[in-house]
């Protein structure tokens, strides 16, 4: 047994939409400072699982904890108390999320996108938040785009602003849902470079991706999901280069 609590710990996590069983008992652990890459065919439940982690979806059964806290509940003795809206929001602050389609706020400039939550949610001083936001934009290579609206930025630039926006809340965990899938091929590299740097800085990350090369290089754990279950997981060297399961092999032969 390790002494420290894992950042993400899932045991038998289930989720269904109507009659459709999307997650059929997911077991998964992400240790502090580690990068976990989730791979699998479309519709296998990767996004749904990611969204469960910050409570955008409610888990139906099983146990899901982030940094030791049950997602969506507070445990008191043998009772589980459902969290209030305020507490749910409070916990989400510590979990950054980056979406496939960026979801930047189109009515705000890049700088406003990054500094809005620190000021309005965390109550930061706005001059300080501006400085921090400028520093973050610089870190993702977009210092000169601070005054641009999302519509004036390329997809790759928008996604890097989105990463900066998530980092502005100083999260302890970052979730990425196919962050490069909506990008033109020549723009993928810049975004991956930012993520690589983030991993090197020690951020705990769960990344849904089809970028096998990235997973092989950056991930500590690669997890292959299909039809709502974890088919195979382990070091990327093994899962991606020499998979044990036939389903993993078939999938990899398609994406590579």
């Amino acid at each position, binding site marked *: 047994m390790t002494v420290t609590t894992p950042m993400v710990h899932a045991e038998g996590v289930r989720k269904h939409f109507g009659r459709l069983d999307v997650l059929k008992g997911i077991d998964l652990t992400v240790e502090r400072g580690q990068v976990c890459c989730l791979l699998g065919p479309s519709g296998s439940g990767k996004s749904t699982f990611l969204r469960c982690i910050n409570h955008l979806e409610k888990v139906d059964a099983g146990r899901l904890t982030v940094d030791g806290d049950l997602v969506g509940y507070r445990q008191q003795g043998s009772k589980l108390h459902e969290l209030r*809206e305020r507490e749910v*929001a409070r916990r989400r*602050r510590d979990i950054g*999320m980056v979406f496939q389609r960026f979801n930047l*706020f189109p*009515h705000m400039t890049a700088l406003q996108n990054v500094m*809005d939550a620190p000021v309005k949610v965390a109550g930061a001083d706005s001059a300080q938040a501006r400085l921090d936001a400028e520093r973050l934009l610089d870190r993702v290579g977009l210092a000169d785009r601070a005054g641009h*609206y999302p519509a004036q930025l390329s997809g790759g630039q928008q996604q890097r602003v989105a990463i900066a926006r998530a980092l502005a809340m100083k999260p302890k965990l970052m979730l990425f849902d196919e962050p490069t899938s909506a990008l033109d091929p020549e723009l993928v590299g810049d975004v991956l470079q930012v993520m690589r740097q983030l991993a090197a800085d020690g951020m705990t990350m769960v990344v849904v991706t089809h970028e096998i090369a990235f997973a092989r290089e950056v991930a500590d754990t690669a997890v292959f999901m299909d039809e709502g279950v974890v088919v195979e997981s382990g070091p990327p060297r093994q899962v991606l280069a020499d998979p044990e399961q036939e389903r993993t092999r078939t999938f990899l032969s398609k994406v590579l």
Partner: protein
Amino acid sequence: MAASTAPVPAGTDAVRSDEAPPQDLLVVPVRHWGRWIAAVAAVTALTGLIGSLANNANLHWDIVGHYLFAGLIFDGLVTTLWLTAAAMVLALGLGTLIAVMRRSTNPVLYSLATAFVWVFRGTPLLVQIIFWGYAGALYKYVMIGVPFTHITFLQADTNSLLTPAVAALLALGLNEAAYASEIIRAGIQSVDEGQTEAAYSLGMRPALTMRRIVLPQAMRVIVPPMGNESINMLKMTALVSVISAHDLMSNIQDVYAQNYQVIPLLVVASIWYLILVTLLSFPQSWLERRYGRGTAQSGRTSPLRRLLTGSASRLRVLGSGPNHQKG
């Protein structure tokens, strides 16, 4: 150089590129004779109509001129304006609340909001105005207290609370709130779900997300129809003359009830309504530009500014001349 007045022969690229640079050729636009004839006919008809109105003794332009700036008419104008503004503010506030309630998963809130829209959109506005005007006949007193007990905090005579102006405001505002709520709901629905998720993932709570992320984007969809609604409201205030709320139309009616100059006074009313409606369209275009920020249209300048600095677009037309050559 070739003579600049020579017509361009059709399809002779070689001539154009070798002998004469395109910008030296005179462009002869297509003449639209049909349009000219139609325009002349329409202008003639309009001139005739205006002339007959101007010279019509029954119209009494002297009376129109006399009442156009009369004190009573001006008072009515002021009432019409604040009634319009107050009713729209009430409608926007209540409409937003109802729109949010109709999206709620709480069945009680949802049903209340739906019932509100059903009633206030389903009965004629004129009926609602008269109803509020005579509500004193239904409830003699208005009380605030605990229902089904004798505890009252406040009690007042309905007729002293529900003056014609208050009744008019309630009738117009509540009716408009039903329509506004539908417009606002459509606006909220037009905003991508991903915006809400992004806001939630940053730790924003639903109310802040609605206020700061969703509604500002919904405004792009909400402002144009709400502008129409405001213009409609301005004219609908004329209906409250049935409970003599001292708006423009009420006062116009008061005047012609005494001097029987119905037509000239209706002309006075029409002139003022037209002026007010024209003035109202300015804030609308300003709002449309403000909430268009960050979209492709945000680069657009206002019509007024374009008029003042109009040369740019004309230059562009001149510069693109050669492309418009017709052979």
